[in-house]
């Protein structure tokens, strides 16, 4: 957290000295981006708190944590392929899950498929690439998610 603040402060000071107008524009942009995602943010936070508080955490996280890395990662990958949420909401949500002991391996499967595989956006993709190419690209994304998860798992010592 400290790193993000220090980096932001450093870059903002540099930007301020080089060009004040652009720096102000950056602040305005940041504010309008924030305003855009705020509703979705509140909705996701409320539902996450409600489900974690009312249904017991063990039940809810059973598939992600309790049944081993393989089941967890497959669940994460399925959720990531179907869900269509912006990264400004998805990563904070991932941080919450991480805090609830969901392994990095599972988080990586979720975030990578969220980026690379889109069931919801598939019709759009098909219009440009055609059915075959769009399908293969999404499947390749799924394969990539698998490799990334394994790499992340090894890096954080969750996999041997």
């Amino acid at each position, binding site marked *: 957290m400290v*790193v993000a603040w220090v980096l932001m402060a450093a870059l903002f000071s540099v930007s301020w000295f080089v060009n004040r107008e*652009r720096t102000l524009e950056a602040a305005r942009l*940041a504010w309008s981006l924030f305003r855009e995602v705020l*509703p979705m943010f509140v*909705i996701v936070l*409320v539902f996450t708190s*409600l489900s974690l508080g009312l249904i017991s955490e063990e039940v809810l996280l059973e598939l992600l944590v309790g049944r081993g890395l393989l089941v967890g990662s497959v669940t994460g990958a399925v959720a990531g392929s179907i869900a269509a949420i912006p990264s400004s909401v998805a990563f904070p949500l991932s*941080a919450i899950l991480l805090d609830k002991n969901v392994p990095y391996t599972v988080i990586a499967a979720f975030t990578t498929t969220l980026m690379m595989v889109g069931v919801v956006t598939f019709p759009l993709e098909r219009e440009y690439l055609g059915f075959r190419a769009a399908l293969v*690209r999404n499947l390749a994304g799924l394969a990539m998610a698998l490799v990334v998860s394994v790499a992340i798992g090894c890096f954080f010592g969750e996999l041997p």
Partner: protein
Amino acid sequence: MSGKRSSLPFWVVLFLAFAAFVALSSALHFEPGTRCGVDFLAFARTMAGLLPPTFLLVGLFHSWVKRETVEKHMGRESGVQGYFWAIVLAGTIVGGLFVALPLCLVLQKKGASMKVILTFLNASMICRIPMTVFEASFLGVGFTIVRFAVSIPLLILIAWGMSSWLGGGFRISEP
């Protein structure tokens, strides 16, 4: 959304209802309800610490890096440079597929090879800088570095494999 002037947006109503539920729970000593409130506050505190610098960094990125500047390099450069610019251009994308797919068409008209176009398309999903800022802030820089190190070679590999499988006659079509 276009309803009466007095109607509140859904998220505000949801938040107020949630706050009321937590307040009532704590008054009635309904433990699961209070726990929701405690969880929410903990999440909100984490977000409050990380969201301002993250959004400001993303704002800085947008005000300094203009997509059009990078786009100029595409199509003309070939070989390794083509891939390099494909990934850099992808980094500047905002709005995901809705922006990236039409840009693929633009690149095709400029004469970029299918390998470069597909590299760009895949990179636009996993190398977007604003997204990466969020990832690094919330999951740590280590996570981001490992993911990049693994996925950049993979996305070029996928682009190579796909374009040779699709053959030379493959074109991205206007929707």
